[in-house]
Protein backbone atom coordinates (compact mmCIF):
# COMPACT_ATOMS: atom_id res chain seq x y z
CA UNK A 1 0.00 0.00 0.00
CA UNK A 2 1.22 3.46 -0.87
CA UNK A 3 1.99 5.44 2.24
CA UNK A 4 1.52 9.13 2.78
CA UNK A 5 3.86 9.56 5.72
CA UNK A 6 4.64 13.23 6.24
CA UNK A 7 2.47 14.41 3.35
CA UNK A 8 0.62 17.58 4.24
CA UNK A 9 -2.48 19.28 2.92
CA UNK A 10 -2.05 23.04 2.79
CA UNK A 11 -4.84 25.57 2.64
CA UNK A 12 -3.63 28.37 0.40
CA UNK A 13 -5.47 31.62 -0.17
CA UNK A 14 -4.08 33.68 -3.04
CA UNK A 15 -4.60 37.37 -2.35
CA UNK A 16 -4.61 38.65 -5.92
CA UNK A 17 -4.49 37.57 -9.55
CA UNK A 18 -0.71 37.68 -9.57
CA UNK A 19 -0.63 35.07 -6.81
CA UNK A 20 -3.23 33.00 -8.66
CA UNK A 21 -0.87 33.09 -11.65
CA UNK A 22 2.01 31.93 -9.44
CA UNK A 23 -0.08 29.06 -8.14
CA UNK A 24 -1.06 28.08 -11.67
CA UNK A 25 2.63 27.88 -12.45
CA UNK A 26 3.10 25.62 -9.42
CA UNK A 27 0.21 23.45 -10.59
CA UNK A 28 1.90 22.76 -13.92
CA UNK A 29 5.12 21.51 -12.31
CA UNK A 30 4.54 17.76 -12.67
CA UNK A 31 7.66 16.80 -10.70
CA UNK A 32 6.14 18.35 -7.56
CA UNK A 33 3.32 15.74 -7.68
CA UNK A 34 0.83 18.18 -6.21
CA UNK A 35 -2.68 16.89 -5.69
CA UNK A 36 -5.22 19.70 -5.74
CA UNK A 37 -8.08 18.57 -3.49
CA UNK A 38 -9.89 21.85 -3.77
CA UNK A 39 -9.19 23.53 -7.10
CA UNK A 40 -7.62 26.84 -7.83
CA UNK A 41 -10.21 29.40 -8.91
CA UNK A 42 -9.79 33.06 -8.17
CA UNK A 43 -8.10 35.38 -5.71
CA UNK A 44 -9.49 35.23 -2.19
CA UNK A 45 -10.74 31.65 -2.52
CA UNK A 46 -9.18 28.78 -0.64
CA UNK A 47 -7.20 26.09 -2.39
CA UNK A 48 -6.40 22.74 -0.75
CA UNK A 49 -3.32 20.94 -1.98
CA UNK A 50 -1.80 17.65 -0.84
CA UNK A 51 1.96 17.86 -1.04
CA UNK A 52 4.27 14.85 -0.80
CA UNK A 53 6.69 15.05 2.12
CA UNK A 54 9.68 15.19 -0.21
CA UNK A 55 8.33 18.30 -1.96
CA UNK A 56 7.06 20.16 1.10
CA UNK A 57 10.09 22.32 1.64
CA UNK A 58 10.26 23.43 -1.99
CA UNK A 59 6.57 24.32 -2.11
CA UNK A 60 6.62 26.22 1.18
CA UNK A 61 9.66 28.19 0.09
CA UNK A 62 7.87 29.02 -3.17
CA UNK A 63 4.77 30.20 -1.33
CA UNK A 64 6.73 32.25 1.18
CA UNK A 65 8.93 33.85 -1.46
CA UNK A 66 5.83 34.97 -3.34
CA UNK A 67 4.16 36.09 -0.12
CA UNK A 68 1.21 33.73 -0.70
CA UNK A 69 -0.62 33.03 2.58
CA UNK A 70 -1.07 29.41 3.61
CA UNK A 71 -1.82 27.29 6.62
CA UNK A 72 -1.49 23.58 7.32
CA UNK A 73 -4.86 21.89 6.95
CA UNK A 74 -3.65 18.32 7.54
CA UNK A 75 -0.36 17.91 9.36
CA UNK A 76 0.30 14.32 8.33
CA UNK A 77 -2.02 12.54 5.91
CA UNK A 78 -0.82 9.10 7.03
CA UNK A 79 -1.91 9.76 10.61
CA UNK A 80 -5.46 10.33 9.39
CA UNK A 81 -5.30 7.24 7.19
CA UNK A 82 -4.13 5.10 10.11
CA UNK A 83 -7.02 6.44 12.16
CA UNK A 84 -9.43 5.69 9.34
CA UNK A 85 -8.15 2.11 9.17
CA UNK A 86 -8.44 1.67 12.93
CA UNK A 87 -12.00 2.97 12.87
CA UNK A 88 -12.94 0.61 10.05
CA UNK A 89 -11.45 -2.36 11.92
CA UNK A 90 -13.23 -1.34 15.12
CA UNK A 91 -16.59 -1.12 13.38
CA UNK A 92 -16.01 -4.42 11.57
CA UNK A 93 -15.40 -6.17 14.90
CA UNK A 94 -18.51 -4.49 16.30
CA UNK A 95 -20.62 -5.77 13.38
CA UNK A 96 -19.46 -9.33 13.92
Amino acid sequence: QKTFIGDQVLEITPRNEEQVKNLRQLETEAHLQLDFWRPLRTAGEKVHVRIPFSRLQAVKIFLESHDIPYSIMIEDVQVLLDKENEEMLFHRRKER
Partner: protein
Amino acid sequence: SSGFDFGTYHTLEEIFQEMDNLAEQYPDLVSKLQIGYSFEKRPINVLKFSTGGNKPAIWLDAGIHAREWVSHATALWTANQIASDYGKDPSITALLDTMDIFLLPVTNPDGYVFSHTENRMWRKTRSTISGSLCVGVDPNRNWDAGFGGPGSSDNPCSDSYHGPSANSEVEVKSIVDFVKSHGEIKAFITLHSYSQLLMYPYGYKCTVSKDFNELNEVAQIAAEAVTSLYGTTYEVGPICSIIYQASGGSIDWTYDYGIKYSFAFELRDTGHYGFLLPVNQILPTAEETWQGLKKIMEHVRDNPY
Protein backbone atom coordinates in the same frame (compact mmCIF):
# COMPACT_ATOMS: atom_id res chain seq x y z
CA SER B 1 -31.41 -6.93 10.20
CA SER B 2 -28.07 -7.70 8.53
CA GLY B 3 -26.26 -5.83 11.31
CA PHE B 4 -24.61 -3.66 8.69
CA ASP B 5 -23.02 -0.56 10.17
CA PHE B 6 -23.90 2.43 7.99
CA GLY B 7 -21.65 4.64 10.09
CA THR B 8 -18.35 3.35 8.76
CA TYR B 9 -16.54 2.81 5.47
CA HIS B 10 -16.78 -0.58 3.80
CA THR B 11 -15.01 -2.61 1.17
CA LEU B 12 -16.65 -3.25 -2.20
CA GLU B 13 -17.53 -6.82 -1.18
CA GLU B 14 -19.25 -5.61 1.99
CA ILE B 15 -21.21 -3.01 0.01
CA PHE B 16 -22.33 -5.58 -2.56
CA GLN B 17 -23.32 -7.93 0.26
CA GLU B 18 -25.42 -5.23 1.88
CA MET B 19 -27.10 -4.45 -1.44
CA ASP B 20 -28.11 -8.13 -1.58
CA ASN B 21 -29.32 -7.92 2.01
CA LEU B 22 -31.50 -4.91 1.22
CA ALA B 23 -33.02 -6.71 -1.76
CA GLU B 24 -33.72 -9.70 0.48
CA GLN B 25 -35.13 -7.60 3.30
CA TYR B 26 -37.50 -5.63 1.03
CA PRO B 27 -38.32 -8.05 -1.78
CA ASP B 28 -41.45 -6.18 -2.88
CA LEU B 29 -39.61 -2.91 -3.25
CA VAL B 30 -35.91 -3.44 -3.81
CA SER B 31 -34.09 -5.44 -6.45
CA LYS B 32 -30.49 -5.52 -7.60
CA LEU B 33 -29.62 -5.29 -11.25
CA GLN B 34 -26.32 -5.33 -13.02
CA ILE B 35 -25.91 -2.76 -15.77
CA GLY B 36 -22.42 -3.76 -16.88
CA TYR B 37 -18.89 -4.65 -15.90
CA SER B 38 -16.03 -2.37 -14.97
CA PHE B 39 -12.71 -2.39 -16.86
CA GLU B 40 -11.40 -5.05 -14.45
CA LYS B 41 -14.64 -7.03 -14.82
CA ARG B 42 -16.29 -6.14 -11.55
CA PRO B 43 -20.09 -5.90 -11.69
CA ILE B 44 -21.71 -2.47 -11.85
CA ASN B 45 -24.61 -3.07 -9.49
CA VAL B 46 -27.66 -0.84 -9.20
CA LEU B 47 -30.47 -1.00 -6.66
CA LYS B 48 -33.91 -0.52 -8.13
CA PHE B 49 -36.68 0.74 -5.86
CA SER B 50 -40.01 0.09 -7.49
CA THR B 51 -43.56 -0.62 -6.43
CA GLY B 52 -44.20 -2.29 -9.77
CA GLY B 53 -44.67 -1.47 -13.41
CA ASN B 54 -42.39 0.69 -15.47
CA LYS B 55 -42.57 4.18 -14.10
CA PRO B 56 -40.58 7.30 -14.87
CA ALA B 57 -37.48 7.21 -12.73
CA ILE B 58 -34.93 9.11 -10.70
CA TRP B 59 -31.27 8.14 -10.99
CA LEU B 60 -28.81 8.51 -8.09
CA ASP B 61 -25.15 7.60 -8.22
CA ALA B 62 -22.12 7.96 -6.01
CA GLY B 63 -18.40 7.41 -6.08
CA ILE B 64 -17.54 8.13 -9.69
CA HIS B 65 -14.36 9.50 -8.08
CA ALA B 66 -12.96 6.61 -6.10
CA ARG B 67 -11.44 8.44 -3.15
CA GLU B 68 -14.62 10.30 -2.23
CA TRP B 69 -15.59 7.59 0.25
CA VAL B 70 -18.25 9.54 2.09
CA SER B 71 -20.31 9.61 -1.09
CA HIS B 72 -20.42 5.79 -1.30
CA ALA B 73 -21.28 5.58 2.38
CA THR B 74 -24.01 8.20 1.99
CA ALA B 75 -25.49 6.35 -0.98
CA LEU B 76 -25.75 3.14 0.98
CA TRP B 77 -27.36 4.86 3.95
CA THR B 78 -29.75 6.50 1.48
CA ALA B 79 -30.66 3.13 -0.01
CA ASN B 80 -31.61 1.85 3.41
CA GLN B 81 -33.54 5.03 4.15
CA ILE B 82 -35.57 4.85 0.94
CA ALA B 83 -36.46 1.22 1.62
CA SER B 84 -37.37 1.70 5.26
CA ASP B 85 -39.30 4.94 4.66
CA TYR B 86 -41.64 3.45 2.07
CA GLY B 87 -45.01 2.93 3.69
CA LYS B 88 -44.02 5.11 6.66
CA ASP B 89 -42.98 8.49 5.28
CA PRO B 90 -45.87 9.91 3.20
CA SER B 91 -43.51 11.81 0.93
CA ILE B 92 -41.36 8.79 0.02
CA THR B 93 -44.43 6.61 -0.26
CA ALA B 94 -46.04 9.03 -2.70
CA LEU B 95 -42.78 9.30 -4.61
CA LEU B 96 -42.38 5.55 -5.02
CA ASP B 97 -46.03 5.17 -5.95
CA THR B 98 -45.33 7.55 -8.84
CA MET B 99 -41.73 6.92 -9.79
CA ASP B 100 -38.93 4.36 -9.57
CA ILE B 101 -35.53 5.12 -8.12
CA PHE B 102 -32.27 3.65 -9.39
CA LEU B 103 -29.28 3.95 -7.08
CA LEU B 104 -25.69 3.13 -8.00
CA PRO B 105 -23.59 3.28 -4.80
CA VAL B 106 -20.22 2.48 -6.43
CA THR B 107 -19.94 3.98 -9.90
CA ASN B 108 -16.22 3.28 -10.20
CA PRO B 109 -15.70 -0.12 -8.53
CA ASP B 110 -12.13 -0.68 -9.81
CA GLY B 111 -11.03 2.70 -8.52
CA TYR B 112 -12.80 2.08 -5.21
CA VAL B 113 -11.01 -1.24 -4.66
CA PHE B 114 -7.71 0.38 -5.65
CA SER B 115 -8.32 3.15 -3.12
CA HIS B 116 -8.80 0.49 -0.42
CA THR B 117 -5.88 -1.72 -1.34
CA GLU B 118 -3.19 0.35 -3.06
CA ASN B 119 -3.64 4.10 -3.00
CA ARG B 120 -6.21 5.81 -0.79
CA MET B 121 -5.96 8.95 -2.95
CA TRP B 122 -6.96 7.23 -6.22
CA ARG B 123 -9.62 9.12 -8.18
CA LYS B 124 -9.80 7.69 -11.71
CA THR B 125 -10.83 4.44 -13.35
CA ARG B 126 -8.20 1.71 -13.78
CA SER B 127 -8.25 1.41 -17.55
CA THR B 128 -4.97 1.20 -19.40
CA ILE B 129 -4.10 3.45 -22.30
CA SER B 130 -1.91 2.19 -25.10
CA GLY B 131 1.33 4.11 -25.32
CA SER B 132 1.17 5.42 -21.76
CA LEU B 133 2.56 4.11 -18.52
CA CYS B 134 -0.12 6.00 -16.62
CA VAL B 135 -3.36 4.31 -15.69
CA GLY B 136 -6.93 5.52 -15.58
CA VAL B 137 -9.30 8.13 -16.88
CA ASP B 138 -11.26 10.71 -14.93
CA PRO B 139 -14.74 9.26 -15.50
CA ASN B 140 -16.31 12.62 -14.86
CA ARG B 141 -14.49 14.10 -17.85
CA ASN B 142 -15.40 11.19 -20.14
CA TRP B 143 -19.06 11.96 -20.95
CA ASP B 144 -20.11 13.20 -24.35
CA ALA B 145 -20.67 16.81 -23.27
CA GLY B 146 -18.04 19.22 -24.54
CA PHE B 147 -15.71 16.23 -24.46
CA GLY B 148 -12.04 17.21 -24.45
CA GLY B 149 -12.80 20.86 -23.78
CA PRO B 150 -11.58 23.23 -21.06
CA GLY B 151 -11.22 21.82 -17.57
CA SER B 152 -10.13 18.39 -18.72
CA SER B 153 -6.65 17.15 -19.54
CA ASP B 154 -5.30 15.29 -22.54
CA ASN B 155 -2.40 14.02 -20.43
CA PRO B 156 -3.01 10.36 -19.40
CA CYS B 157 -1.01 10.99 -16.23
CA SER B 158 -3.30 13.79 -15.09
CA ASP B 159 -6.03 13.23 -12.51
CA SER B 160 -8.46 14.96 -14.88
CA TYR B 161 -7.48 13.00 -18.03
CA HIS B 162 -10.57 12.88 -20.26
CA GLY B 163 -9.72 9.58 -21.92
CA PRO B 164 -9.18 8.67 -25.57
CA SER B 165 -12.81 9.32 -26.58
CA ALA B 166 -16.19 10.10 -25.06
CA ASN B 167 -17.65 7.04 -23.29
CA SER B 168 -14.35 5.18 -23.62
CA GLU B 169 -14.74 4.15 -19.99
CA VAL B 170 -17.04 1.18 -19.67
CA GLU B 171 -18.24 2.52 -16.31
CA VAL B 172 -19.53 5.63 -18.11
CA LYS B 173 -20.85 3.84 -21.16
CA SER B 174 -22.81 1.39 -18.99
CA ILE B 175 -24.73 4.28 -17.43
CA VAL B 176 -25.22 6.04 -20.76
CA ASP B 177 -26.60 2.83 -22.29
CA PHE B 178 -28.85 2.28 -19.31
CA VAL B 179 -30.23 5.83 -19.37
CA LYS B 180 -30.88 5.60 -23.11
CA SER B 181 -32.52 2.19 -22.92
CA HIS B 182 -34.69 3.15 -19.96
CA GLY B 183 -35.95 6.24 -21.75
CA GLU B 184 -37.89 7.68 -18.82
CA ILE B 185 -35.20 8.94 -16.45
CA LYS B 186 -36.49 12.32 -15.27
CA ALA B 187 -33.81 13.26 -12.78
CA PHE B 188 -30.11 12.44 -12.54
CA ILE B 189 -28.32 13.19 -9.29
CA THR B 190 -24.67 12.43 -8.67
CA LEU B 191 -22.92 12.47 -5.29
CA HIS B 192 -19.37 13.70 -4.87
CA SER B 193 -17.39 15.10 -1.94
CA TYR B 194 -16.16 17.45 -0.44
CA SER B 195 -16.81 21.17 -0.70
CA GLN B 196 -20.46 21.59 0.16
CA LEU B 197 -21.83 22.53 -3.21
CA LEU B 198 -25.06 21.80 -5.02
CA MET B 199 -24.57 22.29 -8.73
CA TYR B 200 -26.48 22.06 -11.96
CA PRO B 201 -25.46 22.44 -15.65
CA TYR B 202 -23.37 23.68 -17.23
CA GLY B 203 -19.76 22.81 -16.60
CA TYR B 204 -18.41 22.54 -20.12
CA LYS B 205 -19.60 26.01 -20.98
CA CYS B 206 -20.21 29.07 -18.89
CA THR B 207 -23.58 30.03 -20.30
CA VAL B 208 -26.77 29.47 -18.34
CA SER B 209 -29.08 26.63 -19.25
CA LYS B 210 -32.63 27.28 -20.43
CA ASP B 211 -33.96 25.90 -17.13
CA PHE B 212 -31.58 27.95 -15.00
CA ASN B 213 -34.28 29.69 -12.97
CA GLU B 214 -36.13 26.52 -12.06
CA LEU B 215 -32.97 24.50 -11.33
CA ASN B 216 -31.58 27.30 -9.22
CA GLU B 217 -34.81 27.58 -7.24
CA VAL B 218 -34.96 23.83 -6.58
CA ALA B 219 -31.29 23.76 -5.64
CA GLN B 220 -31.69 26.68 -3.23
CA ILE B 221 -34.60 24.94 -1.51
CA ALA B 222 -32.64 21.69 -1.33
CA ALA B 223 -29.56 23.44 0.07
CA GLU B 224 -31.67 25.14 2.74
CA ALA B 225 -33.04 21.73 3.69
CA VAL B 226 -29.51 20.36 3.98
CA THR B 227 -28.54 23.25 6.23
CA SER B 228 -31.62 22.84 8.42
CA LEU B 229 -30.29 19.74 10.16
CA TYR B 230 -26.77 20.60 11.31
CA GLY B 231 -26.16 24.07 9.91
CA THR B 232 -23.89 22.88 7.09
CA THR B 233 -23.83 25.64 4.52
CA TYR B 234 -23.91 24.88 0.82
CA GLU B 235 -23.08 27.05 -2.16
CA VAL B 236 -25.49 26.70 -5.07
CA GLY B 237 -25.00 27.38 -8.78
CA PRO B 238 -23.92 26.13 -12.20
CA ILE B 239 -20.71 24.06 -12.18
CA CYS B 240 -18.83 26.59 -14.29
CA SER B 241 -19.42 29.49 -11.99
CA ILE B 242 -19.10 27.81 -8.61
CA ILE B 243 -16.19 25.47 -9.22
CA TYR B 244 -14.57 25.95 -12.61
CA GLN B 245 -15.14 25.14 -16.24
CA ALA B 246 -15.04 21.33 -16.48
CA SER B 247 -15.85 19.48 -19.69
CA GLY B 248 -17.19 15.96 -20.13
CA GLY B 249 -19.16 15.81 -16.87
CA SER B 250 -22.10 13.50 -16.24
CA ILE B 251 -24.84 16.01 -15.47
CA ASP B 252 -24.03 18.10 -18.54
CA TRP B 253 -24.54 15.03 -20.72
CA THR B 254 -27.77 14.04 -18.99
CA TYR B 255 -29.11 17.58 -19.20
CA ASP B 256 -28.32 17.91 -22.90
CA TYR B 257 -29.82 14.46 -23.40
CA GLY B 258 -33.10 15.81 -22.06
CA ILE B 259 -33.00 15.06 -18.33
CA LYS B 260 -33.96 18.44 -16.99
CA TYR B 261 -33.39 17.74 -13.31
CA SER B 262 -29.65 17.07 -13.35
CA PHE B 263 -27.76 17.91 -10.17
CA ALA B 264 -24.39 17.24 -8.56
CA PHE B 265 -23.78 17.32 -4.81
CA GLU B 266 -20.40 17.91 -3.21
CA LEU B 267 -20.96 16.55 0.28
CA ARG B 268 -19.68 18.08 3.49
CA ASP B 269 -16.29 18.52 4.97
CA THR B 270 -16.98 21.03 7.70
CA GLY B 271 -13.96 19.91 9.68
CA HIS B 272 -11.27 20.27 7.00
CA TYR B 273 -10.53 16.60 6.47
CA GLY B 274 -10.97 16.62 2.71
CA PHE B 275 -11.33 13.10 1.37
CA LEU B 276 -10.50 11.66 4.79
CA LEU B 277 -13.73 12.47 6.55
CA PRO B 278 -13.80 10.65 9.92
CA VAL B 279 -16.36 7.89 10.22
CA ASN B 280 -18.28 9.72 12.94
CA GLN B 281 -19.30 12.26 10.29
CA ILE B 282 -20.76 9.72 7.86
CA LEU B 283 -24.21 9.55 9.42
CA PRO B 284 -24.64 13.33 9.85
CA THR B 285 -23.51 13.78 6.24
CA ALA B 286 -25.98 11.19 5.00
CA GLU B 287 -28.82 12.55 7.13
CA GLU B 288 -28.41 16.12 5.97
CA THR B 289 -27.93 15.11 2.34
CA TRP B 290 -31.15 13.14 2.54
CA GLN B 291 -33.03 16.33 3.41
CA GLY B 292 -31.79 17.93 0.21
CA LEU B 293 -32.33 14.86 -1.93
CA LYS B 294 -35.92 14.61 -0.75
CA LYS B 295 -36.62 18.21 -1.76
CA ILE B 296 -35.29 17.58 -5.26
CA MET B 297 -37.14 14.29 -5.63
CA GLU B 298 -40.40 15.82 -4.42
CA HIS B 299 -40.05 18.58 -7.00
CA VAL B 300 -39.40 16.01 -9.73
CA ARG B 301 -42.45 14.03 -8.63
CA ASP B 302 -44.69 17.09 -8.58
CA ASN B 303 -43.48 18.59 -11.86
CA PRO B 304 -43.71 15.88 -14.53
CA TYR B 305 -42.49 16.76 -18.00
